[in-house]
């Protein structure tokens, strides 16, 4: 397959309205929920500002090269993931199939997370917010027991939203409110992806830009809250000692990798709708840097709000102790304030130690409250919702926050769906005369029906499983084979000539070094470290069980064998496509070479017309 003039200009392939739409789509795909709820958490637990060092090293040597590779590949071959890898080599077709499968698995559960966001969004229109108060128990003498023992936000999340079962094995029933929200979410996805990039290109203007607006609003609001500075100082104070822990480097590498949404096939699909003479190198660097800057920018309001929450919790703790002491000693009100609390306590302790001991005062430590780190759904649906209740005008903040999360997730969904849609369109599953709307409708309908499993009582446990196993190991494997495939099978010389033709300048030495050696090596190390860490202990999870003795702490449980088998299946299925397809072609080749009448002819066909 030689470079130059075989690819005609007008081949009926849809294209982006303008370059900005394409860049925005790539940025929207890369910037997702993880930028808001995973990166700040990693910064916090891995020594604050010091985490940025491994993060930027990983960005430079792993993130940007792989991103450039995928964009260049898609742009040059002008095909989705399956078609592109079949073109590189039929033996590597499995890489395309693998990434197509991962896109399907991730689309299924990712939209369910958006379902939860939507549920919270439509519940934000009430006064008071439903997660701010506990409901009363049956005879109205007190609060609901499960709610009283944990907190109102926990109760709303685990009981009113998920209606969670105490175990993965107990499926529970389908939650009808979640089914309604799931249907709405898939309808929104269908609305936006109905004609492929024609419609997502228009929708992305809103879904990609809106989150930045809301983040800025939250930034301004967050910085004015009391306790925000404590939160920010806590986040960004660098602790260089953590860099000695290899876990930190592993987390940085995996975070960059998953944050940029590499190996999903969506980026290849997006780039395939580009004109071929486009500077993919600049695009890759732009997208990667914007993604990382967004992560940093998002962590500021997140940590201001978390600092505010910790300070408020600390003040509540102090106030409760003060009330107890005042009531016990019948001191006048406002005699003990937060500032002189410690001096009063030491005075009272020296004079009446038994009384003080009898009160069982909790020790209030601001550092302890700041240390309570959460990531993922815990951050959004528990920590943040609690902080929002404490702000004036909570409804508005809640609405803004959940619309922002929804837009972030939706723009990532576009990329996932494109990764599924484009290869199917090319494989011509449906006849060409049938409209594109039909194919996207079928994809959305089937995905909705399968995703109904996630609306069961045990649904969130299954989403954790999918997140941990389907969206982690297979991506590393596929990315590794992508780099090896392009560099050593397609041959880097050929590829660099193709890229040169597209960008108009010679391929920089940096790309040669990273594509040939550094990135594959890094991926291999990350993959092995990741697998080793996973294998060290049997896969376990934490369950919400009201009947547990340690309630409201979550109960540690181990997955039963059949669930573990499913985990392995989820991780292995996309990976195993790669050798399977190669084997299939090998066997076919052997069969044909055995049969002498079938001489493989030279074929000149209008390859361009078929893309």
């Amino acid at each position, binding site marked *: 397959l030689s470079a130059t003039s075989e690819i005609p200009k007008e081949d009926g392939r849809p294209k982006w309205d303008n370059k900005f739409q394409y860049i925005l789509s790539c940025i929207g795909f890369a910037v997702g929920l993880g930028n808001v709820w995973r990166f700040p958490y990693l910064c916090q637990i891995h020594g604050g500002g010091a985490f940025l060092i491994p993060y930027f090293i990983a960005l430079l040597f792993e993130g940007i090269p792989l991103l450039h590779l995928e964009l260049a590949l898609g742009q040059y071959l002008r095909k989705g993931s399956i078609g592109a890898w079949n073109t590189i080599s039929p033996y590597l077709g499995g890489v395309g199939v693998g990434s197509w499968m991962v896109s399907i698995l991730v689309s299924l559960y990712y939209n369910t997370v958006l379902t939860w966001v939507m549920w919270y969004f439509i519940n934000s*229109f009430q006064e008071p917010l439903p997660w701010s108060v506990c409901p009363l128990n049956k005879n109205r003498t007190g609060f609901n027991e499960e709610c009283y023992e944990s907190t109102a936000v926990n109760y709303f999340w685990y009981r009113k939203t998920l209606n969670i079962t105490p175990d993965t094995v107990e499926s529970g029933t389908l939650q009808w409110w979640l089914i309604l929200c799931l249907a709405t979410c898939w309808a929104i996805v*269908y609305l936006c992806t109905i*004609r492929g990039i024609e419609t997502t290109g228009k929708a992305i203007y809103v879904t990609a830009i809106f989150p930045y607006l809301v983040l800025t609003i939250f930034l301004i609001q967050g910085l004015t809250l009391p306790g925000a500075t404590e939160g920010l100082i806590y986040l960004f104070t660098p602790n260089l000692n953590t860099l000695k822990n290899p876990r930190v480097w592993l987390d940085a590498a995996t975070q960059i990798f998953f944050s940029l949404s590499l190996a999903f096939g969506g980026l290849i699909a997006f780039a395939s709708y580009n004109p071929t003479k486009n500077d993919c190198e600049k695009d890759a660097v732009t997208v990667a840097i914007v993604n990382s800057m967004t992560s940093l920018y998002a962590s500021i309001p997140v940590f201001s709000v978390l600092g505010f929450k910790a300070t408020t919790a600390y003040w509540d703790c102090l106030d409760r102790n003060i009330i107890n002491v005042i009531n016990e000693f019948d001191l*006048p009100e406002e005699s003990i304030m937060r500032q002189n609390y410690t001096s009063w306590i030491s005075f009272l302790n020296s004079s009446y130690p038994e009384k003080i001991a009898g009160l069982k005062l909790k020790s209030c430590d601001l550092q302890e409250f700041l240390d309570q780190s959460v990531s993922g759904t815990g951050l959004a649906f528990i920590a943040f919702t609690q902080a929002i209740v404490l702000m004036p005008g909570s409804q508005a903040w809640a609405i803004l926050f959940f619309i922002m999360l929804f837009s972030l997730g939706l723009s990532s969904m576009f990329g996932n769906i494109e990764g599924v849609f484009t290869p199917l369109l090319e494989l011509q599953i449906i006849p060409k005369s049938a409209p594109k*709307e039909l194919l996207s409708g079928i994809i959305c309908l089937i995905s909705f029906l399968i995703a109904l499993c996630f609306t069961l009582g045990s649904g969130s446990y299954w989403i954790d499983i999918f997140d941990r196993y389907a969206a982690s190991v297979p991506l590393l494997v596929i990315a590794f084979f992508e780099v090896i495939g392009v560099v050593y099978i397609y041959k880097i010389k050929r590829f660099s000539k193709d890229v040169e033709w597209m960008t108009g300048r010679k391929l920089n030495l940096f790309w040669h070094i990273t594509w040939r050696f550094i990135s594959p090596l890094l991926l291999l190390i990350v993959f092995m470290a990741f697998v080793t860490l996973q294998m060290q202990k049997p896969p376990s999870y934490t369950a919400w069980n009201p009947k547990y003795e340690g309630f409201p702490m979550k109960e540690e449980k181990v997955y039963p064998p059949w669930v573990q088998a499913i985990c392995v299946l989820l991780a292995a299925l996309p990976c195993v496509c790669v050798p399977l397809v190669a084997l299939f072609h090998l066997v076919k080749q052997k069969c044909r070479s055995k049969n002498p009448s079938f001489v*493989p002819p030279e074929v000149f066909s209008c390859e361009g017309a078929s893309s």
Partner: protein
Amino acid sequence: MLRALLLILSVVAFFFAELCKPDAQNAFKVRISIKTALGDNAYAWDANEEYLFKAMVAFAMRRYSSKSTTQISNVLLCNVTDRVSFWFVVTDSSKNVTTVPGSEVEAAIRMNRNRINNAFLLSDKTLQFLKITSTLSPPVEPSTPVWLIVFGVVLCLIVAGIVFLIVSGIQKHKKKNKESTERENLEEKVEVTLENGIPCEALDLKAGHINGVFAADDERFTSL
């Protein structure tokens, strides 16, 4: 005479003092947090407020038992602290030097809690009767849950959008078909650029013509 009177008074006072003391039978502890409730508008707790309190308790007893025999002097306060907290009992004037049973007092207070709170501009939390639990008011529940309304609005908008897009897509498709058949008819009259008997447009629109004999097994490229 005077001495006898004084003796009787002191005995009565003694008994009354015995009736009202911390943890006495049928006595209740009250805790008031005026500064928490009212902040800058807080009033000071003095003898007048105590008088109002006694009046409110007497009122509550009268309303509850509708006997109209409870007087303000029947309500005894003691052990007032700076907190502000104190104990009170309600004596029964019909029976000599006894207190009204605690259950009756509790029921009376419960029935009139709202009135008592409002007299002092306080709430259940800031005017606490320590042994009397308050019935919590149920949250206001609208007839249709609000979220269902919002959900309905969102869903309607989305369905409208989908229908609009599908209909416009069908219309565009029909227009394109009509145009292409018109163009084909036009070209058949004029000169058709043919290649192997196939018009050029068809080559662009369809999937390309691959000669089945030569393209066996989709192997269009030299294999590895």
